[in-house]
């Protein structure tokens, strides 16, 4: 029978029962919970203070296997994949021949010649095109592998209660195989929040068992199911960007100016120009490295007093949206637009209005004073802001 509904994740039975406001969001063809409660506060603070359980199943997942698996990823992405150890995870972007970003995700070296690649959008065609003549199989497993992101300072304690092997030794951006109540899982010390956190990968059929085990063990540690809206606030604080929100994939861009290079997105540390051999976009990236980037993604911290003054003119205290805003806001210096903010949010932790912004040279230098557009009583105004280093927030326990 024809079914035009969005897909639901293997956790749907649990998540739908808990989602009070029926706030659902579309993510790569799936339904996921936007928020479980009417107000985002508790979900946001679970990420920063206790343990947030987030269904991230819709992430695109590929298993890349075979003698040339490492060679393929080495060629497609900007990281030095040959140097990765088994059990290591690497965040990376990948580019077209012009060195413009197509997508970003993580590479996990599961075995010597088996990798898992995550992506925001379908990449099977691109991967296959690049694998010509290689001894490698590429399988999309998005619909077979359920994934939970488990984020927050108490997550380690909770995992230790349910896992067969303790996770204490699991380092930042490493993974391990483990068992939760007898179910085989892979646990990686990764996430999208900039806090202590893990991502748990499991077979679809085991999804509910793992969810229930975590919810039960976590109940004394403040475990809270969290939707993607609260995660969106946390990821901005962590200085992490999102495809189609903060940049446009080179493969979808209508015009050149919509494309971004990894350098322009601040991913210099992921571009291994010293790695041996060819990789896609190498020449263009080398050139950009030599000549400098025209743009850079940076953090903006809006000056609260300046904002108060603007609102005061109409007799209002500053009004702040309750969740992250995915709208482009012009950024000015004097009367000239020098860039735009792609995501902005109130940071409940920092008590600061922050944004991820793309600024032109030379305005992207740390400490530059700019102004960001805000709308006050239907009028466009510009609030003073400063260019700051990303991430906005990085707790010491993130990597410890």
């Amino acid at each position, binding site marked *: 029978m024809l079914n035009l509904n969005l897909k639901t994740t293997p956790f749907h039975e649990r998540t739908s029962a808990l989602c009070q406001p029926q706030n659902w969001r579309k993510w790569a063809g799936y339904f996921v919970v936007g928020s479980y409660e009417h107000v985002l506060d508790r979900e946001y603070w679970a990420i920063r203070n206790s343990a947030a359980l987030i269904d991230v199943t819709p992430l695109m997942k590929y298993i890349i296997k075979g003698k040339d698996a490492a060679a393929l990823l080495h060629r497609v992405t900007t990281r030095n994949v040959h140097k990765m150890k088994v059990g290591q995870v690497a965040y990376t972007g990948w580019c077209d021949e012009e060195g413009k970003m197509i997508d970003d995700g993580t590479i996990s070296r599961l075995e010597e010649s088996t990798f898992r690649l995550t992506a925001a959008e379908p990449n099977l065609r691109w991967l296959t095109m690049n694998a010509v003549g290689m001894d490698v199989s590429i399988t999309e497993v998005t619909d077979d592998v359920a994934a939970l992101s488990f984020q927050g300072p108490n997550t380690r304690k909770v995992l230790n209660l349910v896992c067969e092997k303790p996770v204490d030794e699991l380092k930042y951006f490493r993974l391990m195989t483990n068992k939760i109540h007898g179910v085989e899982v892979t646990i990686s010390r990764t996430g999208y929040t900039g806090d202590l956190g893990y991502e748990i990968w499991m077979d679809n059929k085991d999804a509910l068992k793992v969810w229930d085990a975590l919810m039960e063990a976590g109940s004394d540690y403040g475990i809270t199911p969290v939707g993607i809206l609260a995660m969106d606030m946390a990821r901005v604080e962590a200085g992490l960007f999102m495809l189609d929100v903060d940049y446009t994939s080179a493969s979808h861009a209508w015009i050149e100016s919509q494309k971004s290079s990894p350098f322009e997105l601040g991913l210099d540390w992921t571009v291994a120009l010293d790695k041996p051999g060819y990789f896609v976009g190498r020449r263009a990236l080398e050139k950009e490295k030599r000549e400098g980037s025209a743009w850079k993604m940076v953090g903006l911290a809006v000056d609260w007093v300046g904002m108060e003054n603007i609102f005061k003119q109409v007799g209002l205290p500053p009004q*702040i949206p309750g969740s992250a805003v995915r709208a482009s806001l012009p950024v000015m210096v004097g009367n000239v637009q020098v860039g735009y903010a792609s995501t902005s949010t109130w940071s409940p932790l920092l*008590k600061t209005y922050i944004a991820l912004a793309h600024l032109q040279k030379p305005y992207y230098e740390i400490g530059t004073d700019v102004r960001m557009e805000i709308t006050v009583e239907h009028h466009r105004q510009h609030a003073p802001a400063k260019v700051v280093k990303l991430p906005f927030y990085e707790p010491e326990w993130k990597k410890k």
Partner: protein
Amino acid sequence: MTSSNTYDAIIIGGGHNGLVAGAYLARAGKKVVVLERRPIVGGAAVTEEIFPGYKFTEFSYVVSLLRPEIIRDLELPKHGLKILPLPSTFTPMENGDYLASWDDHDLTRRELYRHSPKDAEAYDEYARVMARAAKAIKPIINLIPPDPSSMSIRDLMGLLKVGQYAASLSEKELYMVAKLATQSSADLLEEWFETDALKGTKAASGIIGTYLGPRSPGTAYVLLHHYMGEIDGAFRAWGFAKNGSGGVSGAIFNATKALGVEVRVNSSVQQVKVKNGRAVGVILENGDELTSKVVMSAADPKRTFLQFVEQKHLPDDFVTSIQNFRARGSSGKVNIALSKLPNFTAMPYTGNGANSVLHRGAVSISPSIDYIERAYDDAKYGQISSALPRHDLPSMIDPDMAPPGHHVMSCFVQYAPYDLEGGWNDQRRNELGEAVIATIEQYAPNIRECIVGMQVISPKDIEAIAGITGGNIFHGELLLHQIFFLRPTRNGQTSAPRSKATTSAQAAHTPAAA
């Protein structure tokens, strides 16, 4: 005397106010020392492990009015500050029902509608009126109060500001502010609502920390004062600090250290040294002498001017008015360690209760205005009346406060009169604790079997441990005749005789952690 004992500023008292003052002075490049009598900093904003594994915010209970600019200026999040939301208030009723308010407007309205459709509508308007009044009054609070009797340029400019401000209000707002400033909370609430539990719960926040009942004039202002923590919208200023109120002090302390402030604990001040009418340093109880251009006291006005400064340096009428300054504590604190959550018959939970919604917020025993007024009647004549515990369970918000599965309950108890008839002793303390449990037991019958430990703090204990005269949580009663230019006495006289000794009660209206 060594130069190591010479400072640009000496701050007496290592509570949150003293530490903030120290941090700002250090930011301005000054050499500062903060002197704390106790072995730990934080003053009344401390978290201590009273029973092994159970951490309590011993005195204070929630955070509000901690100004966001302080959080940003001192980079407190980097130093560990997290203010977690307190999402709800739950009032169990005598008829077995309950009244709840939630962080979602529509949910609260629906809940009120269940009790009174009229109140549900009135509530919307009331909230707007109060928010407008709070907004109207807030700029005044940040002013240095001008002395209306003074002709000095500073005071005249200040008065001009107040005048300009009053002129900026609409006629309606001006009347509203004047009325709120003089009314009792009962009168105010009865104009708006008919549901007893709603009026009782609102009235309860109009008496917090005061020696007044809901029918006493001036309580509407206290109610408004508590509303101020709520108008900053995005700030969500009311909340529970990670690691309790000690988490607030701890973050500020870390910031002061990073800024190079010297903080000395176990350093009781014996006397402020005065020379030619100016404070020039302090003598510690251990005999050490410190000199400084400025001495600032974060202690309350009575302690500052009646204990630290020799009275021969102060004008007689000033001393008299400080003696008359009202600072009688009216509230106590009962801190309870629990092996499990108490179950309220009005909203029972199943399972282990860890996700019990009501336990995440405040629980207020305040079924009606009369109920509270009667409790005040007892207090007026020096009797314990613990019928009014308002409690929350910090461990439901920050699980690190208690061992896994266990909880801590923080009960703010009014009234616990400072001048209890017969005086406070262990027996009277037990009586207060017992009265609190007996009250809660009426609504949560299993409370006794949950208890593994209990600490009772009377206003006398607040005075003895935290060093606040009278054990008054506001460093002096929040009364109309003691605020603005009347605080703590006739204006200008605080700094009399024009020495540089000021009190934090003048610098900040209320403690950041109530």
